[in-house]
């Protein structure tokens, strides 16, 4: 299982008012673990008021820059991103798992490819890593970036992209699409929708010769772009997606304090929610929650029944269960009340569990 390592903040700078670029150095000889692939992300963890939060942010550095760097845009009400933008300082330590993600394609110095990237807002971070690495490592390939933002002053890495255009003269093409700011060309104003893409493909982008497309942005934008690309002959094997949902799972409330102590009776009542429906069933205290659900004709998810795979994960909202084996859930999930239902026996007379959370 992936482990968290300490990273030290070596540099911080604002790329726009609401976004900070954080440069990190792995501590304690973990450098090798952080040898990333372009387009990958880091998952950080931090305690906020006694509750662990985990957030993933894409690496924005290219492979050849010799640094580890992520871009963090502040989202309204986002505890982690607000903290990173307002309180994080050089010298602080952050905990992160080694890079993960498969938002990349293999590079080959001999290749002569046409890449097309779409980024919406902070979705630029992995695409920036990809385009920098690609331009450096595939000298015969070209990259076109369609970059959607609200207005000129919310464009992350705007100057860096200008510098890259000059550095890779003729090989990097950047089309800024701005939602609210008017531009010289009408087409470049508005949202990046399916229709907008179709118009871009008519005069601005040679879609027929595109080898691979990368998309990273909010959900509706990804859907529109993907439809336009498929319409123009790109199959899914040539479209790479990366979605960090605007609503990453928020802070979970702790489970209700169990009511009443365990009694000696060997029967419990379990209220089990699955796919929006709740059933109340009687469970002997030597039967697992999963088996109780299955016996009552509920289609509860499971696979290994050995506490290994975590398919049967559910959340205890009320009461106590005893999980006799756990090879899959991490401590922070357990703290939030998640259990492996195949290994969990009721302890209190009443338990409430939910597979939908």
């Amino acid at each position, binding site marked *: 299982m992936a482990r968290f390592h300490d990273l030290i903040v070596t540099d911080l700078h604002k790329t726009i008012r609401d976004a900070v670029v954080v440069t990190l150095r792995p501590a304690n000889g973990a450098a090798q673990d952080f040898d990333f692939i372009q387009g990958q992300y880091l998952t950080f963890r931090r305690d906020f008021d006694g509750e662990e939060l985990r957030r993933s942010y894409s690496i924005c550095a290219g492979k050849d820059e010799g640094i580890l760097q992520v871009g963090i845009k502040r989202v309204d009400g986002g505890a982690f991103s607000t903290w990173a933008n307002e309180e994080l300082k050089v010298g602080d330590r952050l905990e992160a798992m080694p890079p993960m993600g498969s938002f990349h394609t293999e590079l080959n110095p001999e290749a002569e490819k046409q890449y097309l990237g779409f980024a919406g807002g902070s979705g630029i971070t992995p695409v920036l890593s990809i385009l920098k690495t690609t331009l450096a490592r595939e000298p015969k390939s070209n990259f076109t970036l369609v970059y959607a933002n609200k207005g000129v002053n919310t464009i992350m890495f705007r100057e860096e992209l200008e510098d890259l255009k000059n550095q890779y003269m003729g090989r990097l093409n950047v089309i800024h699409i701005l939602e609210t700011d008017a531009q010289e060309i009408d087409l470049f104003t508005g949202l990046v929708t399916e229709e907008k893409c179709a118009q871009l493909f008519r005069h601005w982008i040679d879609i027929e010769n595109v080898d691979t497309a990368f998309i990273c942005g909010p959900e509706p934008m990804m859907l529109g772009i*993907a439809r336009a690309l498929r319409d123009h002959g790109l199959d899914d094997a040539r479209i790479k997606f990366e979605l960090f949902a605007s609503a990453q799972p928020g802070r979970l409330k702790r489970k209700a304090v169990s009511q009443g102590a365990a009694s000696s009776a060997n029967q419990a009542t379990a209220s089990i929610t699955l796919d929006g429906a709740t059933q109340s069933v009687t469970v002997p205290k030597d039967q697992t929650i999963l088996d109780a659900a299955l016996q009552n004709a509920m289609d509860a*998810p499971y696979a290994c029944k050995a506490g290994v795979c975590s*398919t049967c994960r559910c959340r205890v909202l009320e009461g106590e269960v005893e999980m006799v084996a756990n090879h899959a859930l991490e401590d922070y999930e357990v703290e939030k009340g998640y259990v492996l239902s195949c290994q969990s026996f009721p302890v209190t007379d009443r338990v409430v569990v939910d597979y939908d959370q």
Partner: protein
Amino acid sequence: MAEEMSIESYLAAGGILSNPANVPPRYRAELMKLMATFVDSELAGAAGFADIINDAPGLKERIAAARIVLEKTDHAERVLKVMGEFGADTARYASHHPWTARLPRDADIAATRSEHDMRLAVFNYPLQGWADAVVMNLLMGRAVVVQLAEFAMVSYQPLAEAFRAIAPREARHAQLAEEGLANLAAEPAERDALQASVDYWWPRVAASFGAADTRKFAALKAMGLRRSTGEELRTRWVGEAKARLEALGLKAG
């Protein structure tokens, strides 16, 4: 840019997910089941086939059988790696279960899974010697080709990519079986035994496409985890497998 959209409606509209960070709980569970079914079937299939290597009549067949065992195990590992990103203990997973375990040849389990793993029911039946294994491998191999064409389009991109890489090699396994069966079918003396194997395996492989469950299918479809129903996939398989058997002078079930 400011538009808000739930993950559920994003998926229903054909959206693609790319990392474990934002998959909804029920999606996670169904995705894990799908992966476990594949991994368990590959591990059980490879384990059963490993014993058959020694029954192979010649060196070429021995190599083909060994290669199938090797590659199916490798395919299990690739998908298990994706499960690992969701927290599954991959090392323990591969060793927690006796993958060679089989039921009696005449066990009547229809499409029910065993208590202890998610392998497709068909992998609970034992093989009886080389020719029987070749027949099973052709019929199930063609079924896997049909199923992988479906699953290579799932909405979880890392899994879709794994399946796209696996699909051509599984297709090759079915082709190896077809070549093996052509050799066996050339011997008139073998005919009856081969037909008996076809009759045994045909309904069992057919059952592996699952029973019709409209509600379940609708839920999986909305998550982008299914496109065709089990019945549609079965029909595709029947067409393909039948043509291949008939070309070799055998009758489909």
